């Protein structure tokens, strides 16, 4: 989840680079697909609700085979329970279906985000319906939850949701705050441990160089959110992997309604390749580690995206939304078209 642009500038959840890095990035931007032929990617944090079908197409073309969409703040506060309910339903319904039309397996995490935890009356109601969604097929965790302002209300609902995750046996996807990040991250981890949650079941998100060491040392998964072409972030991601290796590290795009790039993972993979990171390590941080972490939910069957069925948009889905006005559906070239 990102915030308004000025806040991003002050509190980047990603990295900033040099002029030399920018030049490399420009080159990668143009040719990055050459470096990642035959690689496949798993983006464990992307808000497709806020993205277009062009993005889905681009993800599919770049080798992203599966994604996780965490429940988050939609840019303005919700005013009632029904909008929360409809939002959660869309993550397991319409968005999942929309994604499938591009051959991308869509999972989600369900939770009450930190900002809206501050509306306590509404938060109480939301807590009551969360269990209805946490046990659904394809719900791979409780998320994204954690701290924003680090208020008492945020802490209260973070703790309550940790208990829900424990009961459901689900991983937790923890959003770390943009402001006072280091302390917020430490506090998030301490509370999770206090609730008796195995750190291997917790993915601490939006790390940077200042937070990663402690996260890994304590046994948590460390996720990094990358915005490569606005802030040139992935150069320094490469350095993080060089320094810390590939164990329990994963990257994501967190693409949403803000300035962000859904192709952050494929682009960073290309950059890693250029910078001499091994294919093995690239695979771990752009694919396998995220699967290992979230498959602890029991809700990920890699067969679904490693041996996908032929995509035929015209078979399951025709007409009036994605394929408008007689537009020819884009069909897998090997598919037999059935009408």
């Amino acid at each position, binding site marked *: 989840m990102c915030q308004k642009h000025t806040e991003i500038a002050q509190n980047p959840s990603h990295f900033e680079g040099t002029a030399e890095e920018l030049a490399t990035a420009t080159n990668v931007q143009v040719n990055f697909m050459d470096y990642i032929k035959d690689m496949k990617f798993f983006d464990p944090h992307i808000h497709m609700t806020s993205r277009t079908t062009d993005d889905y197409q681009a993800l599919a073309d770049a080798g992203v085979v599966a994604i996780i969409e965490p429940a988050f703040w939609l840019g303005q506060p919700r005013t009632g329970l029904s909008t929360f309910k409809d939002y959660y*339903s869309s993550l397991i*319904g319409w968005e*999942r*279906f929309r994604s499938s039309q591009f051959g991308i397996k869509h999972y989600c995490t369900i939770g009450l985000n930190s900002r809206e935890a501050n509306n306590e009356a509404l938060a109480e109601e939301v807590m009551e319906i969360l269990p209805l969604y946490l046990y659904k097929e394809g719900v791979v965790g409780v998320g994204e939850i954690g701290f924003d302002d680090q208020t008492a209300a945020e802490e209260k609902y973070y703790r309550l949701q940790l208990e829900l995750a424990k009961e459901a046996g689900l991983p937790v996807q923890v959003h770390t705050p943009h402001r006072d990040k280091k302390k917020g991250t430490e506090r998030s981890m301490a509370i999770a441990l206090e609730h008796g949650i195995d750190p291997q079941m917790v993915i601490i998100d939006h790390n940077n160089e200042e937070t990663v060491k402690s996260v890994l040392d304590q046994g948590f998964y460390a996720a990094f959110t990358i915005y490569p072409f606005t802030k040139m972030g992935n150069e320094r991601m490469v350095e993080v992997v060089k320094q810390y290796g590939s164990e329990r590290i994963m990257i994501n795009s967190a693409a949403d309604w803000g300035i962000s790039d859904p192709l952050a993972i494929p682009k960073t993979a290309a950059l890693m390749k250029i910078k001499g990171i091994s294919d093995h390590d690239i695979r771990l941080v752009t694919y396998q580690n995220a699967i290992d972490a979230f498959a602890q939910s029991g809700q990920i069957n890699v067969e679904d995206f490693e041996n996908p069925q032929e995509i035929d948009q015209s078979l399951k*889905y*025709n*007409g*009036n939304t994605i394929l408008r006005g007689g537009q020819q559906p884009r069909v897998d070239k090997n598919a037999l078209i059935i009408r």
Partner: protein
Amino acid sequence: MSIISKLLSIIQENASEKELNWILSKSSSESKNILTAFVATPRFVSKKTVEFVLAEENISHSWTLDRLARVYLLLSFPTDSEEVYLKNINALFDTAEINEAVALYSALPYLAFPEKWIYRATEAVRSNIGLIFDSLAFRNTFPATYFTEAEWNQLVLKCIFNDKPIHLIQGLAERANQKLADTLSDFAHERWAAGRSVPAQVWRLVSHFLNEEILKDIEKLLQTDNSDNQIAAILVCKETTFEPAKALLIKYFSIINDLGEDNITWNKLEK
């Protein structure tokens, strides 16, 4: 044998002992547990494909085992209080993900208080999620039994609009009507004007509602180079009692000869 015991015997033939025990213990438990079990089914029951036919429907179904189990669970809710029954099923509809919705719509023909589900059924027709639409539209007896003419026509038209196979709709011939035939003719004109086509088998819906206007469409089909269109037109002319259509059979006799009588069946067009 009731539907529920038939479903159970199909489940018994296909489930492992562990799966079966889970299904039986949940279905005989209190409603609250059935609700949770419905949601949790894929955690305990596999997605193995099961082919079966229910004798009274004579429909070939191909469902995953978890879908069968979910439908069975739905049929296990006590029906003594209508209010509680409706509340339970509606709660599942309101929070359903795609596979749950598919199971709910598959169960509609067998649920109690059927007239209470008509609105839900029309919502499936409005759905753009293909799997949900299909679960209500195809191999499902609910729409033909309970839809009004307007609701029925919307279902059929949306199928045609989306190039879906209408022969999978149950009761297609029985529920054909003049309004649908007229709308279909209009729809074909729109498609033709846009340089597009209409799947040939949809013309089976006009056989008993032919008039001068629609007959022009039928002649137009005969004049296309498309053998599917020609087959459809010939079948309509054969089936109708509208006398002017019979003249077309004579006028276009050579087409019938070229196609061969054996090839002139709706079956050939069911795709």
